[in-house]
């Protein structure tokens, strides 16, 4: 592999890893703080991507906005959806056993899938990136790298920094971190745990949907995308340690690297590699790399 190709694959692996981190961070927070296994998290990613596809013409027609306007609308919409979903459905799952949560959210996947099928369709769709991000940067003589992919990585890094800031510098972040290690304590401190949970859940949904939205121009929009992301994200969360956002970042980058380079170097084994990695890490550290908080 020559240097240019290697560089391209590195950039791809970082971009993929960062995108995974965006989705997985929501999953690990919901998992770690509310103790809910949410199999439908991949559906939020899919919903985000389909929003990028479906909202674009609506936003263009109504407000005359382009990509970023669609993005803004999508984020607001997903926060609202997340809020309502938590209030109507997920808040009932907190007290239930893991197995019941698994099955109820599995049922939710089926529902979301069919709703997507009814509202949109079952086809694959492309989503064009905005014009000013559609170019490429030359790398060496023969290769060039799409600007949009750098944009994806950039957005993810910004969000990661933002999350770090919120977690470590704000009261809200402190409450969230406390909530992930000791739920009862936070409640007894008089903090309305219900509102905190609702907020965390909505944020998780928005992160996943946003990831789907910005990934859409690169990955296209297709029915099975939620599932694919879901399983990989579970691997990320488990490797990183449930409830640990730091762990999710490290694990996501690791998985991004293994998956990207795996596909290039060992294409027939690529699918298996991340599971082998997960099995290996869990055998070394049965509770993931990091603890919660």
């Amino acid at each position, binding site marked *: 592999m020559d240097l240019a190709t290697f560089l391209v694959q590195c950039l791809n692996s970082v971009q993929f890893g960062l995108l995974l981190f965006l989705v997985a961070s929501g999953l690990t927070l919901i998992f770690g703080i509310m103790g809910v296994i949410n199999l439908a998290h991949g559906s939020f990613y899919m919903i985000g991507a389909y929003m990028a596809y479906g909202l674009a013409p609506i936003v263009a027609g109504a407000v005359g906005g382009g990509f970023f306007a669609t993005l803004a609308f999508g984020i607001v919409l997903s926060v609202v959806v997340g809020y309502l979903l938590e209030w109507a459905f997920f808040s009932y799952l907190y007290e239930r056993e893991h197995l019941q949560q698994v099955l109820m959210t599995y049922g939710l996947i089926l529902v979301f899938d069919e709703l997507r*099928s009814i509202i949109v369709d079952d086809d694959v769709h492309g989503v064009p990136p905005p014009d000013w991000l559609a170019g490429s940067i030359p790398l060496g003589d023969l290769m060039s790298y799409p600007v949009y992919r750098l944009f994806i990585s950039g957005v993810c890094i910004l969000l990661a920094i933002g999350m770090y800031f919120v977690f470590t510098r704000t009261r809200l972040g402190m409450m969230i971190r406390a909530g992930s290690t000791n739920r009862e304590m936070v409640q007894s401190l008089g903090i309305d745990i219900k509102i905190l949970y609702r907020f965390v859940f909505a944020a998780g949904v928005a992160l996943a949907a946003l990831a789907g939205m910005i990934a859409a121009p690169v990955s296209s929009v297709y029915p099975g995308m939620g599932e694919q992301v879901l399983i990989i994200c579970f691997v990320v969360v488990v490797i990183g340690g449930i409830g640990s956002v730091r762990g999710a970042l490290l694990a996501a980058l690791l998985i991004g690297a293994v998956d990207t380079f795996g596909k290039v170097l060992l294409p027939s084994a690529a699918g298996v590699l991340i599971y082998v990695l997960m099995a290996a890490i869990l055998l070394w550290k049965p509770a993931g790399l990091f603890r919660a908080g």
Partner: protein
Amino acid sequence: MAVSRSAVVLCLAALAGLLAWPAFASDFGVDLTTKILIYAILALSLELLVGQTGLVCFGQAAFFGIAAYATVRFSPEYDAAAIWWLLPSAVAASAVFALVMGALSLRTRGVYFIMVTLAFSQMAYYVIHDTPVGGGTDGIYLNVPPSVAVGSTQLLDLSDPLHFYYAALLALVTCFVMLAVALRSRFGRALAGIRVNEQRMRAAGFSTYPYQLAAFVLSGAIAGIAGFLFAIKDGFVNPELLSWHLSGAALVMIILGGLGHLRGAVIGAFALSLLEELFQSRELMGGFSDHWHLGLGASIIACVALLPRGLIGLPRMLRARLLGARQAGAP
């Protein structure tokens, strides 16, 4: 765990019904019921792990699919293999995988355990899907079902749907009885103790790991029997037999029927399969039948939410509702 007399009577009545069923049913009905019987065996295998031992395994499809593929792979291309070696070989393939998966997964607990079992089953899926072992992503065919013969006398013709139906029923009854006996034994009681309170079992002197591993292998073997039958039924296997959707469906079956009871697994298999048929039927659902996942998903959610004890708990729930709390306390 004592089984009430009414439960035994119901089981025998159900068995009688299943024995007589082909006389009344259409070809489609027999075919569908055969499929359900096979799924019931799969559900039983999962009930052993989840309901009896307390190990929530999200990878049951791997045992099912590996045996199915082994059945096709081990059979000669144009001849009938003898069932006497084909069945044990296919089951052994699943059991070995279960041994490895169990040995490694049992190092983790709780949610991590669920995820690791899912990961292993995904590994198996990708190996079958992407490597030459699986023979391609579209699946492979079993040209000739195995022969069931002693010497030169044929006992069953597995290509005959009626014979196959009874073979599947025999397999289900055998697995059911075998598990019922096993669960009554010291081994079974130890599993129950491990499920309820593993720490106490260890404090009393039980090395819990070998018991859990044995449950894994037994569960994998029984799921393997189901996979073996499935491969023969349609003569075709594809990688989707190892998909996590099937693992999820198996979990739905045992919860729907009622966790902690062997007959719950069988009831759940029937209930889920019939629900699927219901939602997919054009006659009943019209155009909506194209989007049958919607009804199915909503049903799963409703069942788990409203029937925490599964369908087995329904009579008691109804009695409590109709007669008041006083009556519900009676054993």
